[in-house]
Structures are given as C-alpha cells and as structure tokens.
C-alpha cells in the first residue's frame, strides 16, 4: 500500500494535478474509512455492553422469581418461570441449579447441559462463543444462597446491525466522496494551475529566450503567489539586463565601427606619411647624387693642379712646399673617397646601385687589396698577415664591391690598431646553407675592440663606435655601413665579433655565385573569356596600402583581390578577370606602366578598366597608355568611390532607405547595414520618405511605424498605391507591440518582415534584409517574365 502510494506520487509521468488529486482523495478516503472503522468498533462495544447489562438485569429478575421454587426444589414452578423467557427471543439457554448444584430445571428443556455445577460462584457476565452468558446466585429473601442461575443469550442481531451500519457508512462515504472528488478536481486548479502556468512560462523562456514573457499573477498571498511574483521579478530583471546588454552591444558595435573608421583614417594618414617619407628620401638621394657631381668638378681641379704643382716642384727643386702639396692632394683624395661613399650609399638607397657579375680569382683579389692597404698598416706599426685556405678558386660577384668592402674593413682595422697584428683569413665554408659553400674573409685585429653596445650601432650610416673616435681617427663612419650594404647587395653580410680591449673580427660572408637579377616579365597567359564582373584587383608593392585599401573596399561590399607586384598582378588579372584594376605605378622590377602596357596588349584583358595609383602627376602618360582613370596617392576615399561609381562598381548590393524619426536608432541601423556592404540614406518620417522615393528607388526600405507627421502605416498605404513603388520590399522595425489588426494591415501592405526593436540581432537584421531583397528580385523577375 505504502509502496503503491509512493510509486504513484513519485512516478515521473504523474502530473502535479494528479498527485494533488490523489493526495486529496486518498487521504480523505483513508480518513473516512478509519473514522468509520472506529465508529463501528465503538458501536459494537456499546451494543455488547448494553446486551450484557440487559442479560444481567434479566438474570436478576429471574433469580428473584425462582428463589422460592428453588428453595423448595420445586422444578415445576421454576419451569414456569423459565417459560416466561420465551418472550425474549434471544435467550438461547437458561438453567437453574439448586443448593447442591444439581440441575433443577432448564430452558429449553431438551438442552444438554452439565447436570451439576458448583453453587456459590460469583455473579458474572461473560462472552463466550459468540454469545453472552451470565451466572447468578439465587438468594432467599433472608439472603441465603439456595441455588444458581445460568443464562445464555445469542448476538444474532449484532452481525445484522454491523452489516447495516457498514452499509450505511459505505453509502455515506460514497455520497461524501463524490463531491469531494468533484470539488477536489475543481479546486486542485487553485494550486496546480499557477504552477502549471509557471512551468509553461519557464519552459517557453528556456526555449525562446524571450524574457518578456510573464507568468500569470495569482491573486493571493500564499507561497505560490510569492513564487510566481518572484519568478516574474526575475524575468523582468533578466529582461532589463538583456536589454541593457543589447544596448551595450549595439553601442559597442557602434564604437567598433567608429574605431575601425578611425583606424582606416589613421592608416590613410600613415600611408600619406610613408609616401611623404619615400618622396623625401628619393629627393635626398637625388640631392646627394647631384651634390656629389657638383663637388667633384672643383675637386677635380684641386687634385689635378696639386698633382701638377707637385710634379713641377719636384723638378724645379722646390722641395720645401712638396710636403704641403702632398697634404693637399691626400686630403683631396680623401674627400673624393668620402664623396664616393656618400654617392654609393645614396645610390643603394635609391635602388639604383647596379651589380656587375665578374668572374673573380679570389686569392689575387685579396692579395691585391692587402697590397693597397700595406702602407696604411705600416703607418701605425701594424703587421699584416694573410692566412688563406688552399684552393679558394673563383667566384662570380661584383669585383669592385668585394674589393671596396674588404678595403674598408682592412683600413678600419689599420686605423684602430696601434703596433698590433692584423690577420686576414680567407676560407670556404658551408655555414649559411648546407648545399653550397660561401666565401668567408675574416679581418682580425688586436686593436681597441668594440663594446656590445657599440656593436649594435656601428653599421649605421654616419655613426662611429664613439663620437670621440671621429676626432681621434677621422672618417665619416660611412665605410662600415657601405661595406655591409655592399655585402648584402651581393647576397651576403658582414659579421662582427668583438669585445672592448680584445680586438675585433669582421667577417665578410659572400655567396660564391651572385644571384641572377630578377627574371624578365613572363608573357601573360591567355585565357579566353569575356572581361567579367569579377572582383577589384589591387596591384601595389606596399603591403600597408594593400591592406588598408582592400579593407576599405571590402567595407563597401566589394570583392577584392590583391597582387604584390606587377607579375602577380598580370597573373591574377587573367585568372580572375577583375571588374576593375587599381594599379600602382611605382613598383620594383615591373612597374605599373609596364603592367598597364601588358594588360592593354592582351585582347582578353584590354577591356578591364585600369585606374592608376600614383604620386606622380603622370596622368597624361597613364591615359595615353590606356588607363581609364588615375588616383593620386594618398588615396582619398571620396575620390576612390567616385571613380568606382564611374565604373558602376559603387555599392554593388544597392541602397537602403532607412525611415526612422529616432536619429540614434537610424544611425545604428545604417551602420549595421554599412558594415555588411549596404549603403543607405535616411528619412525622418513617412512624408520625407515619399519625397526620397520620388528621387531614387531603393532596393529596400527599413521602416519605423511610430513617427511624428506621417507614420509608417500611412506611408505604407501611399507606397502601395504607387505601382512603381509597390514592389520595393519593406522591413518594419518597431518598438511597438503590434495588435492582430495591425499585423494584418502590415501583411496586406506586403511587408517582408517585422523586427521588434531591441529584440533582434544585427545578424538577423542583415539576414532579413538579404532575404527581403532576394524575394524582391524573384518577384521582379516573375513580373518581367510572366
């Protein structure tokens, strides 16, 4: 019983309502059954008590009546008395014993009974074998015991009475139970309905994350009402937080958009700055080249005349001035070498340094340089040694630059070493790449050494290890920088190992074969296909500009492909068939003009419009070569979009009219759209929107409903009446809870979707926009071809 009870209550499928019903009915029934049982028991007890008392008093009466006959042992008289018992239907047996305990008489006469008993027992009444028995002593009026009486009474009535009572109780139970059941069913609602409602709402919230739902309030103060109220309060708080979060998110998105815009503009500024720096760097190089030329002419005269004077004074015996003239000449040559260094550096910076590919006998070249430096070494009392590995063989490189680099290293070593030893070690090793041997020329000196801190600066132009060294040792500090640049141009480098006071080792590391210059422009592949509506192809060697520009274009919804040089640009042009090419003029190896010529020479590609990007005002040249347009760097976003517009590449997705009186939400919508490539323009109410429609047909309208002036409903009504406008899809964005009637109104106005303000995500918005436009397109097509 208990387990059934428990099973029923704990069964997972038993509803709360059933449980409550079960509890109410079950407990009521139990109480009634228990009560009835108790009542029956009590009833039984009382009736037995009454029977016993009745029997006892009957025995009393009979005992008085039989006292006389018993005294005289008169059986006949006592029989008469006992016969009176017939009136008592329930007396089943009666016996009278005399003083000796012998049975005097009995009723009914035939009863088989003990013929003798022990007289003088106490008077008592007892139950035995479903009957009530009583024994009673018989007294004479004087109080002498003369015999005893035994009576027995059946209880046939009792069973009947019990059955009747039980029946009655069952009837009562049924009569009471039915209304209890009925009322229980009805009143269980009081408890279960709010709980069920709560459960339904909680489930709905968990499924839809719609925190605007509320459980029905219970008009009472019980725990359920408290629960419902607490739950609703919780929902309200979540909703509020959700809204705040959503607000915050939108705000953040706005901020991100603003930041992005800032970044883009900062990028642009950086581009401008970089271009300026490039321009000024090139100007500097040009200036240096010119200056060195201008300096050379007078220097030429100085050198020539000092040589002339030297020769003439040698002959004319003017030895006195010979040393001075020697100094003029030495200084002149020094000045010349400095000018040459400056010129070389500026040539390297301008990218104009060309390399010869000479076949070099390595050992003779080194010996030759050592021979040249010999006098310099001797000046400071240094010894100069060469330790060359056998069979150094030949290399292919620029002999002048190898020679000059080694000369610079050696003359530096001589300059900074006093009475020491300078050792040149030359050997081949596979330190750079395992597959080939490189030439190493190490110049080791026992000089002043270079501290680690100085080592980081020493290869920079115009910097010497210490400023004081300039005064002490002379020189401009160009030699090392130039040597390293030379070695790098030759595909190698210069390494430095040194410590202060422990001498230095400068090692030139050069590949044995100078790499061939970059390959010639390959002929563009011919892929037969019509000039397509492909992406915009950006060709520029500046990764920074590529990045900034491609993001700018992508932001406007354009597909962008990028090429980092002219060759890649040509390859992509024939592969992708771009709708437009933005082409940089100044690129290494293959410049923009060459690319432009190649494009225009290819019948498959010549149709693609090309916009040249240039800092030089060479627009004429570009247009003559077939460029469609040109943009000056730094690229102005407005000019760019104007140019794109000319090639019908502006806003490929179309424009959206945003009708909302709330400027903030309007801007939010427009920013969201822009981020997905949708251009948009605003109108503040229905009237303004209609005016806008007359000027330009948008691809889509985003419409607020509640606006001052003409509201969204009136606008829709007007719009639908104009056959030109009826097909423009509309998405309603509203903060309002729409009634069924209003929804119907919107449905009839062909509204594509309704978005609840604050209830949709940006993605949903864009998705709806896209869907609506696609549907609109499908609808238009159907209209065109019925």
């Amino acid at each position, binding site marked *: 019983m208990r387990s059934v009870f428990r099973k029923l209550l704990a069964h997972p499928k038993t509803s709360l309502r059933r449980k409550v019903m079960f509890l109410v009915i079950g407990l009521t029934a139990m109480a009634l059954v228990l009560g009835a049982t108790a009542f029956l028991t009590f009833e039984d007890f009382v009736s037995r008590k009454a029977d016993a008392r009745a029997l006892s008093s009957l025995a009393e009466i009979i005992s008085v009546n039989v006292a006389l006959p018993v005294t005289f042992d008169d059986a006949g008289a006592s029989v008469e008395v006992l016969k009176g018992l017939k009136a008592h239907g329930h007396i089943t047996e009666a016996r009278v014993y005399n003083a000796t305990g012998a049975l005097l008489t009995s009723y009914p006469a035939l009863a088989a009974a003990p013929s003798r008993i022990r007289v003088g027992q106490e008077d008592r009444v007892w139950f035995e074998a479903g009957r009530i028995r009583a024994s009673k002593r018989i007294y004479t009026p004087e109080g002498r015991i003369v015999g005893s009486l035994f009576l027995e009474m059946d209880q046939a009535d009792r069973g009947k009475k019990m059955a009747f009572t039980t029946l009655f109780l069952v009837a009562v139970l049924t009569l009471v139970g039915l209304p209890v059941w009925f009322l229980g069913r009805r009143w269980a609602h009081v408890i279960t309905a709010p709980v069920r409602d709560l459960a339904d709402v909680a489930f709905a919230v968990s499924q839809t994350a719609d925190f605007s739902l509320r459980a029905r309030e219970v008009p009472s103060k019980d725990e359920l009402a408290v629960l419902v109220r607490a739950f609703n309060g919780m929902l309200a708080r979540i909703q509020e937080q959700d809204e705040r979060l959503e607000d915050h998110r939108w705000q953040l998105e706005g901020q991100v958009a603003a930041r992005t815009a800032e970044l883009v503009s900062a990028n642009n500024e950086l581009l401008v700055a970089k271009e300026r720096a490039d321009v000024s760097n090139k100007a500097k190089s040009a200036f240096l*080249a010119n200056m060195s030329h201008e300096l050379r002419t007078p220097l030429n005269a100085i050198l*020539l005349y000092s040589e002339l004077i030297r020769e003439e004074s040698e002959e004319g015996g003017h030895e006195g001035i010979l040393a001075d003239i020697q100094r003029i000449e030495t200084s002149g040559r020094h000045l*010349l070498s400095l000018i040459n260094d400056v010129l070389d550096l500026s040539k390297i910076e301008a990218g104009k340094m060309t390399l010869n590919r000479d076949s070099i006998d390595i050992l003779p070249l080194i010996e030759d340089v050592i021979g040249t430096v010999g006098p310099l070494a001797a000046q400071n009392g240094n010894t100069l040694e060469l330790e060359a590995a056998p069979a150094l063989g030949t290399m292919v490189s620029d002999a002048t630059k190898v020679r000059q680099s080694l000369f610079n290293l050696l003359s530096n070593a001589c300059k900074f070493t006093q009475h020491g030893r300078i050792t040149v070690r030359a050997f081949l090793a596979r330190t750079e790449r395992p597959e080939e041997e490189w030439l190493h020329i190490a110049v080791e000196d026992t000089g002043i050494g270079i501290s680690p801190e100085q080592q980081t600066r020493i290869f920079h132009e115009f910097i010497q290890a210490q400023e004081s060294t300039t005064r002490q040792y002379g020189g401009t500090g160009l030699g090392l920088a130039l040597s390293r640049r030379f070695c790098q141009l030759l595909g190698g480098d210069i390494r430095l190992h040194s410590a202060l006071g422990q001498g230095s080792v400068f090692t030139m590391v050069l590949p044995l074969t100078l790499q061939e210059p970059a390959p010639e422009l390959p002929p563009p592949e011919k892929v037969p296909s019509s000039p397509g509506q492909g992406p915009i192809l950006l060709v520029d060697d500046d990764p920074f500009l590529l990045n900034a520009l491609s993001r700018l274009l992508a932001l406007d919804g354009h597909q962008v492909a990028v090429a980092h040089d002219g060759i890649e640009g040509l390859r992509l042009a024939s592969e992708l068939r771009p709708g437009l090419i933005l082409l940089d003029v100044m690129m290494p190896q293959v410049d923009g003009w060459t690319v432009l010529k190649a494009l225009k020479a290819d019948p498959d590609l010549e149709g693609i419009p090309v916009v040249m990007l240039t800092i030089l005002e060479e627009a004429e040249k570009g247009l003559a070569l077939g460029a469609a347009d040109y943009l000056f760097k730094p690229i102005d976003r407005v000019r760019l979009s104007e140019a794109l517009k000319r090639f019908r590449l502006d806003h490929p997705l179309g424009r959206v009219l945003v009708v909302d009186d709330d400027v903030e939400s309007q801007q939010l919508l427009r920013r969201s759209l822009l981020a997905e490539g949708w251009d948009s323009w605003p109108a503040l109410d229905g009237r303004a929107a209609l005016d806008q429609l007359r000027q330009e047909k948008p691809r889509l309208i985003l419409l607020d409903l509640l606006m001052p002036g003409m509201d969204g409903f009136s606008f829709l009504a007007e719009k639908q009446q104009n056959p030109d406008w009826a097909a423009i899809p509309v998405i309603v964005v509203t903060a309002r809870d729409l009634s069924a009637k209003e929804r119907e109104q919107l449905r009839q106005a062909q509204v594509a979707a309704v978005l609840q303000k604050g209830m949709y995500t940006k993605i949903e918005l864009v998705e709806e926009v896209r869907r609506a436009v696609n549907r609109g397109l499908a609808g238009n097509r159907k209209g065109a071809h019925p």
Partner: protein
Amino acid sequence: MTTLLLVEDNEMNRDAISRLLERRGFTVIMAEDGEEGVRACKERLPDLVLMDLGLPGMDGFEATRRIKADPATARIPVVALTARVLTSDQEAAFAAGCDDYDTKPADLARLVGKIRALLEGKEGR
C-alpha cells in the same frame, strides 16, 4: 709623337689635364665642346680622344657617335671622361662607341695607363 685630343668644357680641367699629359710626353690639342671636338678630330686626326661626356650643346655621347660614324675618324680610340659615375652613363658611353671610360677627377696614372693600353692595342692591330 702621340697626339691626344682633349674635349672638355671646363677651362681649369682642360688646362690641368693637358699640362699633366704634356709633362708625360703627349701632344695635347684641345676642344671646348662637342662640335669643335668632332671638327678637330677630323682635321687633326689625333691618336686618341679624351671626351668629356657632359658638354654644352652637342654632348660627349653625340660627339663620340659622330666620330665613330665617320670612316675617317672611326678607328681613333675615344676615352670617355665624366664626373658622373652612374653605371647608366658608363653603359651609354660604351653604346655611343667609346673605347674606354674613366671618371673625373682623373687619376692621372690610371688614365695614362688606359691611354697607353689603347694606343698599344691600336699599334698592335
């Protein structure tokens, strides 16, 4: 007696170079620009021409081209002298027909070396 034609517009350079070369036993005749240089070359038929490239009017490239185009003077070696040291100049000089090239300010020993080498080559031929 070896005669050299020095075509050079800068008066000081012309003076110093010619004097230095004369000291080394050459006869030096001079011209101040390209046109004069071409004319002098044709009239005097020097053994070798030292040609400054950056000349006013007709420049050294053009003058060299003309000298090399005239059968009468085509075999006279021309050594280009220039203050410009860009490789493109060097290449243009050879393209114009120069036989050798040296930068200013001239290292006299080196220049004379080049002159002698060219003259010997010519004699050898």
